[in-house]
């Protein structure tokens, strides 16, 4: 038996109980509502959410519950119908489920484009891009075309491109959903290492409850139609946690039960 004790415990909290100082928030949503048409159904309803700088928050919910819409609103890609959205600094970086790398550019050029659009002078771009690629352990792959990279490598380049934007807040929309299990577990380690190393605030969407418990400090559960944040758990972590760890499984079971309950409410 290994000497390390159980490392993760969880506490359920009601959403209102989250106390974060308002001035220091990295992301703050107040009573955010979203409808695609004025007469249409509410996609998001009364979302109140405060995320502290450097926090790692996972957002889970059934497909179609509006998680991606919420992320798009925080990213500034879509307007909220009503309510207040505030993001620290000049906005957030967003990483998609597909790597969304531009196929006519090499891995390095993809990262350089983000630097260029941010106004980094030409002379510094290449070195900076190489540094970022090294951070995601892709030092030698800078000259490779996108189609020469595996799915996991593409997501790491996409992560490097997000980091190149130098935004405090990093939004991730099911970024590892299309990867095989071994690659995904590895990328969890990578992401955690980069999060701890860079101090970024991360909002991570997933429908994989174990993944949420593996990564998040806080796990938020969203209901569907309308999308609301109905419950949240704080994951107290001491030391390392792996996705196979029994503590992670225990938490995941409890959260999954609540998720199923939410889905069942829509049964006819």
């Amino acid at each position, binding site marked *: 038996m*290994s000497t390390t004790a159980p490392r993760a415990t969880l506490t359920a909290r009601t959403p209102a109980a989250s106390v974060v100082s308002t001035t220091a928030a990295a992301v703050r949503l107040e009573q955010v509502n979203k409808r695609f048409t004025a007469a249409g159904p509410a996609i998001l309803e009364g979302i109140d959410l405060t995320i502290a700088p450097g926090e790692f928050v996972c957002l889970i919910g059934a497909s179609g519950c509006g998680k991606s819409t919420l992320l798009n609103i925080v990213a500034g*890609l879509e307007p909220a119908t009503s309510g207040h959205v505030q993001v620290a600094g000049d906005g957030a970086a967003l990483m998609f489920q597909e790597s969304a790398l*531009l*196929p*006519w550019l090499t891995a390095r050029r993809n990262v350089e484009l983000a630097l260029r659009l941010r106004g980094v002078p030409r002379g510094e771009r290449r070195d900076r891009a190489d540094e970022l690629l090294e951070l995601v352990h892709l030092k030698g792959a800078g000259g490779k*075309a*996108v189609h020469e990279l595996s799915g996991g490598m593409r997501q790491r380049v996409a992560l490097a491109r997000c980091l190149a*934007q130098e935004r405090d807040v990093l939004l991730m929309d099911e970024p590892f959903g299309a990867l095989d299990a071994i690659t995904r577990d*590895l990328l969890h380690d990578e992401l955690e290492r980069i999060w701890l190393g860079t101090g970024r605030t991360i909002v991570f969407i997933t429908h994989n409850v174990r993944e949420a418990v593996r990564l998040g400090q806080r796990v938020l559960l969203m209901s569907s139609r309308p999308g609301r944040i109905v419950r949240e758990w704080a994951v107290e972590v001491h030391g390392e946690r792996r996705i196979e760890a029994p503590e992670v499984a225990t938490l995941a079971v409890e959260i999954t039960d609540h998720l199923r309950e939410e889905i069942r409410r829509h049964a006819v």
Partner: protein
Amino acid sequence: MPSEALASPADARSLESGLDALQTAPVGSTRRGRRTFWTVAAPLLALALLIAGWQLFVSAGIKPAYIVPSPLDVLHEAGAAWGRGDIQRAVATSLERGVIGFGVAALIATPIGILVARVRWVRMSFGPLITGLQVLPSVAWVPAAILWFGLTDATAYFVILMGAIPSIINGLVAGVDQVPPLFRRVGAVLGAGPLELVRHIILPAALPGYVAGLKQGWAFSWRSLMAAEIIAVGGKIGFGLGSMLQQGREVQDMSVVFVAIAGILTVGILVELLVFAPLERGLLRRRGLAAETAR
């Protein structure tokens, strides 16, 4: 229990580089050489078969030789025309017109194409007109062009432009329309302004469609030019392949007609093989879309 032992960072690192190596395609394909051989040999074989069939038809004596000359007759005539310098002169004249006309067409069509693709009211008002122009055979412009410009090179250039410009515009517009919305979102997330979006995302993404439009534009240029040269002979207009074809008809020399047709076809095929095919293949291969790179 060993299964519960946590992986050290070094373990994770080597696992990762192992995965990267396994999931990346090995460099170089052993079948490349064979494939290159057949891409050359197969069309040549087809051509030989076609000529053999032609010779059989002639040998059967179904039609007299002045109606259907034999492959050898045509070859003799081609040799004679080459000796007189007719072929070189005609090809040079036509090719020069075709290339200049096509280049000007591309210069005019590209900015118009970007406007049609990106500006809603331009597309709504001019889009249908441009699509319609593509359907109109450019030969229809020849009489008008002769009345406007007389028997001069301007007539040939005008017809080329009217043939090629709509094709190039339509190719570019189709290319822009097919840019995946995800790429536009990437541009927005990376903070690209409207012009940067066009320059860094939309145009590079639309490049394959644009090149397809250019290729079709060239084909239309070449056809339009031949039509113009056949109809508008004499005056100050130079002697091109189309003129040669028309001359063959006037003196009723079927061999000259065949030589001219073969010349027009050969130039068309060579431009496709030497210019557009490598351009398209390079473009697709770099994006991982060519057949050779499929895993």
